[in-house]
Each structure stands twice: as structure tokens, then as C-alpha cells.
């Protein structure tokens, strides 16, 4: 009995240690993360202070408090109070961590809008374009304002899920850079107001790669074996493979897609893991050496870890634009347009841009940037590169989307042959279940008698 007791103590202590260990790490991890996060924002704020002499329009703002206090005198001439007494609740759905709200270093964009207009903001987030799409398509999401990406916008326009905007309610649209008006996903620019944009680039650890990193070819380099991360979504992964091969990222040509699939399959042996946001820990924690990701997030990672650097791939890359739309089912269109206009107020857009580290289509914000940011190719990629080497995703036909998904499955999962295996398996499992249950009930009856 004593032996048992000792054994139990040992078991329990090890269990407790295991649990305690993981608990500690999780809390310390999260606190460490929040610390570094606050560091970034303070350094970002600091760097803007430093260069406050640069641009002319920077003089118009108090750059010390531009991020912390909304200066109402600097808002554009717009009647924000006209819906004040209507008791409206505006439902906004945005990417996670994609707006300056609930941050100590920034004024809260939504709170300020509520104070200004008397409209309540109900803010929700989504993680993937497809998640947002399925919410809107199924009628579950009752949103007034959404911010999807380019190809998803063109899909939603095609299916009539978003409605035309009344630009007379959005005078601040005039701030939007002409280069971002009428892009392929919304050719007449009737449905969307660009929010942020960026390019897909490579983040790598200077200490962990032996050669200079120049482009996508390094993701296929044996030297980086088992330290490469890759996108865990077919569209981005195929985009990279197609660019590497010199094809268009929007190709519908099956042969080109198959070729891309075959090099992705080759790459699988070199890849450590297929990830999305886990990349922050893996590259940030120096477990992986090289990975493709979105420029704004790459900037965030580099700010956190000085061993990291970025590379803008020589072969070209994907330029993505996230834009604000109003779903067809929206109940408060005018309030939604007011919100869009508010997001494009210079100071609001600047705060969002400073928080996100993504590039901005807003000319007013661009003028507020200091020289350091303007010279940073991650935040402001060179015009020549953008014009010649980048491509925006457009929505592909359903057939092509299905085909890409099929190829992607073949890359990640090995396919089996006979088409009747699954139905047969299902039938056998069902039959067995029924048989077992019948036998049991019979047995019970026998036992009773």
C-alpha cells in the first residue's frame, strides 16, 4: 500500500510538473508577446516623431499626439452627426488585428466614431476571406461593412453579395491614390474603397541561411532543407510556384497549373511545415529560417527580432489589396458609408496604417510618412517593381478553383484509386453498427426471460 502511495505521488508530481510547465510557458509566452507588441508600437511612434520635419503636411498635425488623440478640427468638412438620433448599430466585420482599436498607444477608432456620430459600432473579426464569404453567403452574418481582399471582392461582386457605393457620401474617397482606383477586381470601382495593400515577400533569418536570398528560388534550395515554411493555402502557394515558373498567377491553363503542382510536390521534401499565422512563432522563435508572407506582417516580425531580414523576390510577386465593401444585405447603408468616410479621414487612416505596418492607398497618409518609411521597400515598394513585377489576384472560374484545390490535395495528401471504396466503407460501417445493436437488444431480451 505504501509503495502504491509513493508511486502515485511520483505520478502526480510528474503530471503536475508537466501541466505546470506548460501553463507557465503559455502565460509567460503571452506576456512576452504583449510586451514585444507594445515595444513595436512605441518604437513605431518614436520613429515618426524623429522625422517630423520631413513633409509639409506633417506640420499641420501635432505629431506627438496624432496617434493618441483624435484632433476634431482636422477632420474633413462632413456632417457626421446627421444620423445621431436614429439609434443605429453598425455591424463591422474585419480581419483580426486589422484596426487600431483597444490599443493603449492609439485612440480607439470605433469609440471615436461612436462619439462623433452617435452610431454604435458592433465590431467582429474573421480569419480568412472564405470564412467571411460563407458567413455572408449563408445569410448568417448581418454585416454593414466588410473588408475582404481583392479576389474575394470580385467573387462577391459577381454573385451580387456586395452593393454599389454612393460616393457622394464618401467624399474622402478623393484621397485614394489613382493607382488603386479601378483595379482588376472592381474595374469601374463602384463597390469598394481600398483600405490597405501590400505584397507577398520573403522573411528570413540572417544567421540561418548560408547564401544571399534573392527570390522564390531560395524556397526550393536544398541548402535550406527543413527550415523552409510555406503558405498553408492553395491560392498563395500556387501564386508563388506560378511566378517562380514565370507564369501568370491568375492562369487558368491546366498545364501551367500542373507544372506548378509538380514543383510544389518537389518542394514538399524541403518544407518544414505548411503554416499561416503560426509563422510568427516559428520564424520569430528562430525554428525556421525562411518563409514567404505578407509584407506588413514581415515588418512586424523584423521589428520584433533583429536577426530577421526581408527579400523582395526578383521573380515578381503578388500584390494584394484589402478594400471596404457594403454587403447587399446591409441594413444601414448610409451609416456604413459614413463609417467608410471616417476611416479615410487622414488622422484615422494614419493611425490604422501606423498600427498595421501595411502599405496605404491613402495619399494623405503617405504625405505624413517620414523619409525612413518612404524609403522602406516593405512599406512603400518601388514603383517600377510594382508596375512590372506584381500581379493582383482576380477571381478564377469555379472549375479552376476546384482544380487547384484538387492539385493541392494531391500535393498534401496521396490520393487513392478506386472510386467505390468510400461508399462501400460507409455501408459496411453502417451495417456493422446495425448488426451490433440488434444483437445487443436480442441478447437483452434473452437475458430477461
Amino acid at each position, binding site marked *: 500500500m505504501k509503495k502504491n502511495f509513493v508511486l*502515485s505521488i511520483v505520478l502526480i508530481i510528474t503530471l503536475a510538473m508537466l501541466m505546470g510547465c506548460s501553463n507557465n510557458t503559455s502565460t509567460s509566452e503571452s506576456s512576452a508577446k504583449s510586451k514585444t507588441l507594445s515595444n513595436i508600437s512605441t518604437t513605431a511612434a518614436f520613429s515618426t516623431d524623429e522625422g517630423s520635419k520631413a513633409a509639409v503636411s506633417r506640420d499641420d498635425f501635432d505629431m506627438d499626439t496624432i496617434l493618441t488623440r483624435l484632433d476634431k478640427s482636422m477632420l474633413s468638412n462632413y456632417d457626421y452627426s446627421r444620423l445621431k438620433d436614429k439609434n443605429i448599430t453598425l455591424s463591422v466585420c474585419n480581419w483580426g488585428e486589422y484596426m487600431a482599436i483597444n490599443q493603449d498607444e492609439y485612440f480607439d477608432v470605433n469609440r471615436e466614431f461612436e462619439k462623433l456620430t452617435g452610431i454604435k459600432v458592433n465590431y467582429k473579426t474573421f480569419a480568412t476571406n472564405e470564412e467571411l464569404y460563407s458567413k455572408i453567403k449563408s445569410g448568417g452574418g448581418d454585416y454593414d461593412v466588410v473588408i475582404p481582399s481583392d479576389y474575394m471582392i470580385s467573387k462577391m461582386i459577381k454573385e451580387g453579395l456586395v452593393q454599389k457605393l454612393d460616393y457622394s457620401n464618401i467624399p474622402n474617397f478623393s484621397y485614394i491614390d489613382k493607382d488603386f482606383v479601378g483595379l482588376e477586381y472592381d474595374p469601374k470601382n463602384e463597390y469598394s474603397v481600398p483600405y490597405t495593400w501590400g505584397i507577398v515577400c520573403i522573411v528570413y533569418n540572417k544567421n540561418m541561411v548560408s547564401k544571399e536570398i534573392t527570390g522564390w528560388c531560395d524556397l526550393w534550395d536544398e541548402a535550406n532543407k527543413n527550415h523552409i515554411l510555406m503558405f498553408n493555402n492553395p491560392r498563395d502557394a500556387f501564386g508563388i510556384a506560378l511566378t517562380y515558373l514565370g507564369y501568370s498567377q491568375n492562369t487558368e491553363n491546366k498545364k501551367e497549373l500542373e507544372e506548378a503542382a509538380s514543383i510544389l510536390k518537389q518542394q514538399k521534401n524541403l518544407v518544414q511545415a505548411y503554416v499561416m499565422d503560426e509563422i510568427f512563432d516559428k520564424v520569430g522563435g528562430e525554428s525556421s529560417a525562411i518563409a514567404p508572407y505578407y509584407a506588413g506582417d514581415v515588418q512586424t516580425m523584423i521589428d520584433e527580432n533583429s536577426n530577421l531580414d526581408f527579400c523582395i523576390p526578383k521573380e515578381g510577386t503578388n500584390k494584394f489589396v484589402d478594400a471596404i465593401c457594403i454587403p447587399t444585405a446591409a441594413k444601414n447603408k448610409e451609416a456604413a458609408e459614413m463609417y467608410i468616410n471616417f476611416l479615410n479621414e487622414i488622422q484615422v487612416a494614419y493611425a490604422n496604417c501606423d498600427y498595421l505596418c501595411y502599405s496605404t492607398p491613402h495619399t494623405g497618409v503617405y504625405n505624413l510618412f517620414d523619409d525612413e518609411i518612404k524609403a522602406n521597400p516593405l512599406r512603400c515598394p518601388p514603383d517600377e517593381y510594382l508596375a512590372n513585377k506584381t500581379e493582383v489576384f482576380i477571381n478564377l472560374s469555379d472549375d479552376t478553383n*476546384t482544380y487547384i484545390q484538387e492539385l493541392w490535395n494531391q500535393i*498534401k495528401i496521396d490520393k487513392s484509386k478506386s472510386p467505390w471504396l468510400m461508399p462501400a466503407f460507409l455501408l459496411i460501417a453502417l451495417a456493422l453498427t446495425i448488426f451490433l445493436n440488434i444483437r*445487443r437488444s436480442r441478447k437483452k431480451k434473452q437475458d430477461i426471460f
Partner: protein
Amino acid sequence: MKSRILAIPYIVWMIIFTVIPLGLVIFFAFTSQSGEFTLSNIIAMNDYLDVLFRSIEFSVIATIICLILGFPVAFLISRLARGKQGTMLMIVILPMWINFLLRTYAWMTLLEENGLINRFLGLFHLGPFNLINNSGAVILGMIYNYIPFMILPLYSVMTKIDGNVIEAAQDLGCSGFHIITKIIIPLSKQGISTGIITVFVPSVSTFIISRMLGGGTNDLIGDIIESQFLGNSYNPHLGSAMSLVLMVIVLLIMSLFNQFGSEEAVI
């Protein structure tokens, strides 16, 4: 009669939120995008057969290991003094106070090539070992997350085993091994079968563990279903077909293990 009236709210609830959705899943599984009857969704699942078998394999392994680890722990807890049992049970349940995602996320930072375990081993010039992004890590994640579901039902059955029974067996010269096989295991059969079901069912349909610890190459059927509804390959029909297959498997496993439970009850 009175008891029936009391059950009505729950029955209404169940019909609206369980029976009707279940019917919808079956309906979606056997229709195409245009709403016609088709078997193509079930046939299309062939592409994911390997994933399905992998999910079953992983969860069977996880369940067996949970049983092996959980059985002695549950027995030892059930033999402690009353007051101590509560403390020990609390230690078992403690990790469940923390969000499931966070717990799995913590394992990620432990197992990474540059994680705590490898760094600790590095002090002795061992490693770094490849601990993450493989099937072992996924199974570990399952065991860690679901082992309380094994220990709790086992414990609740084992507390009912009278200590005198075991002592009597000892008095009559029964060896330690035979006490386990002839007394403890038969008397805790009910707990074993409940434990197996409560561990197997969530692990066969899990999706986030495999993504976080498996590195995207050990996707399980839960990941594929998720991607059909919320991910890149939006196709609720195929997703429903997969859920249906998964449901049938779970049903099979449950009726298999209910066998043991009810036999025990009859004896």
C-alpha cells in the same frame, strides 16, 4: 405523465437544434450544388480516404495510450483518502481551466526546434531533436488534451470498488497481476468503455491540434471538413458528406463499446 411534461422543453430544443440540423447534413451530403440527388460527394471523399484512416489511426493510438496512462492514475486516486481525492482530481482537471487553443499553442513553443525542450537538452549537448511537425506530436497533443476525459469516468467507477474485495482476494493468495486482471478491470469495464468513447470521439474529429503540431502535412479529417466550410475550398456538400461518414464511424465505435458496458450490467 408529469415527467413527460418536464421533458418537453428539452425535446423541442433537441428537435430544433439536433434532429433538424442532422437531417440537413444528410440532405446536403446527398445533393449537388444545384440540389439534385447525387452520390458524387461520397465518392469524392475517396480523395481523403488516407486522411480518414490517418485520423482513425491517430485517435486509436491516442485512446490506447490514454487508457494505459489513465488507468493506474485513476485507480491510485480512487484508493486515496477522501480529502486527498478531491485535490488530486483537481490537479487532473486543472489544465482544462485553460483554453484548449492556448494549451496546444504552449506545446508548440515547447516542441519547436528552438523550443524549451530542445534548449534544455542543448545544455547537455544533445539534439536538437525533431519533435514537432510529425505524427507523434499530433498524437501527443491529443493525449494531453483528452486524458482527463479518460481519467474521470474511470475514477468515478473505481471509487465504487470496495477495498474489501481486493483485500479478500489478497487474503486468498491472489497475485498482484491477477487482482488487476480478475477484479479491477472487470469491475471498471463500464468506466473503460465510457473513457474510450469520450477520448476517441473528440480526437477523431479534432482539427486544430493537427494544424498546430502537425505542420500542415498531417491534416486530419477535421481539418478537411473545416476547410470545406470556412477554408479555401468552400463546398458545404462535400463537407456534409465527410461529417456524415465521420458520424457513422463514431456511431460504430460507440455501439462497439456499449457492448462491453451493457454485458457488464447484465451480469
